[in-house]
């Protein structure tokens, strides 16, 4: 028999836990629905497909969409070889365990630094040299995302069975061939997961880019765009809401970002599941 006071205690605990769940879920749902309700009605084809113009008093976010795409591409193109290369070196080649663990620790610490600090450093290192531009922003994002790509790749490299490596070495394959044909293809999942996480982070980044990439809303081609200052969607959201009081546009952008973020989370989950199934 459980005593009455014990029963009361358990009941209270259950109620409190239920309340916590309700509050957490409720707040999340409220934000999602509030933003979507405010934003979705304001998403029009014109908004998505034009540039802002003072002459016709029109706001369009095409340049911001393009800037976002450009900066994601530029960042990934630079960070992937660096991050994967570093991971392969640390896991497969480096022999000094102490140096490896120092670098791993540094990467871990790097990913905890507030992004505004990356912005400050990026401004001094990149913007002051090549000018405030998407490229300067992308380089800053490269530093921010390098640990993510590196660590995800490393973790994945460690899960590749040693027996695959032995099998390949046993056939007379050299180290680089073993890595290229047997090891790397088996850690595509980690690399893809790292990329997806990075894209999510780039989409959501504002502080670091305010410092380095600027605020312009000009629709450019890829290379021209990288050389010019430009706002990504998130930065544009900040500018429209904070500087120009254009809340309809801000909420429209917010809805788009939120939907993208959900899609990214979903794809990260799907990728993980798909590869897990294959590894079994």
């Amino acid at each position, binding site marked *: 028999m459980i005593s009455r006071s014990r029963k009361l205690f358990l009941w209270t605990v259950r109620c409190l836990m239920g309340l916590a769940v309700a509050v957490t879920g409720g707040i999340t749902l409220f934000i999602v629905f509030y933003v979507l309700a405010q934003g979705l009605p304001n998403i029009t084809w014109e908004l998505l497909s034009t540039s802002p113009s003072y002459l016709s008093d029109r706001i369009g976010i095409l340049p911001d969409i393009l800037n976002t795409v450009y900066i994601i591409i530029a960042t990934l193109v630079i960070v992937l070889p660096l991050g994967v290369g570093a991971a392969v070196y640390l896991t497969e080649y480096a*022999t000094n365990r102490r140096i490896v663990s120092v670098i791993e620790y540094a990467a871990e610490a790097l990913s905890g630094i507030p992004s505004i600090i990356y912005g400050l450093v990026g401004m001094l290192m990149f913007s002051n040299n090549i000018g405030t531009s998407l490229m300067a922003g992308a380089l800053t994002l490269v530093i921010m995302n390098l640990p993510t790509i590196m660590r995800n790749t490393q973790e994945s490299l460690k899960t590749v*069975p040693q*027996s*695959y*490596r*032995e*099998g*390949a*070495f*046993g*056939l*007379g*394959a*050299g180290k680089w*061939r073993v890595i290229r*044909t*047997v090891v790397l*293809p*088996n850690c595509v999942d980690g690399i893809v997961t790292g990329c997806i996480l990075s894209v999510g982070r780039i989409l959501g980044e504002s502080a670091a880019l305010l410092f380095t990439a600027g605020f312009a809303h000009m629709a450019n081609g890829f290379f021209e765009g990288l050389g010019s200052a430009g706002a990504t969607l998130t930065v544009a959201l900040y500018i429209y809401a904070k500087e120009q009081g254009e809340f309809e546009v801000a909420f429209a952008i917010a809805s788009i970002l939120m939907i993208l973020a959900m899609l990214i989370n979903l794809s990260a989950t799907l990728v993980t599941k798909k590869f897990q199934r*294959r590894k079994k």
Partner: protein
Amino acid sequence: MNSIITAQDLCLWYGQSQALKNINIQIPERSITALIGPSGCGKSTFLKTLNRMNDLINGVRITGTVEYNGTDIFSQDVNQLRKEVGMVFQKPNPFPMSIYDNVAYGPRTHGIRNKAQLDEIVERSLRDAAIWDEVKDRLKKNALGLSGGQQQRLCIARALAVQPKVLLMDEPTSALDPISTLKIEELATNLKETYTIVIVTHNMQQALRISDRTAFFLLGELVEYGDTEQIFSQPADKRTEDYVTGRFG
């Protein structure tokens, strides 16, 4: 018979602990040599020394000499050595790629790109490994879909595809069912027409059934080495006798 592998005063240490002590052995060409002995006596270590798979382990120190075809294995190109001295592992370890790509992996590694030539090598190797009929209709399928016994024969085919002279097998049947085991034993017996086989086995019957020569290891030492029949029927060393009659180990 000519000996293809000769070890002299071979010692090996993992860090501080010595795993092989003054091994002297001559392995004859086109024959099956069985390595027997209780767990941890250094059979795998010795086998892995022959194609320098030990290079992959940190802290291994080796003294003495091992010659393959009259040349010191430690002063020749390791990838070339492993092409000539192939290995089949205890646990089947096909790559997670198609059956075809598994077998073609070695030849491609050594520079063969021609499709017709690869096709020919893949078929011949799979036939030699007695698995062609079972897989010929599914060469493009993932090798991990095969049964354990088939995977092991695929690994043998994969090793044969680089046309080695020697095949090292480390308890290749210990993870397999009796029927698959029998197939691999039959296969080994056929392969010795062309190849030299060194096989580690825990199974005395297996050593007796397939091997020409038997080497008995104990605590890192080669206690006795001779014709299989003699080792099993009239061993010279008391320890060998105790082991092969099942009195210990």
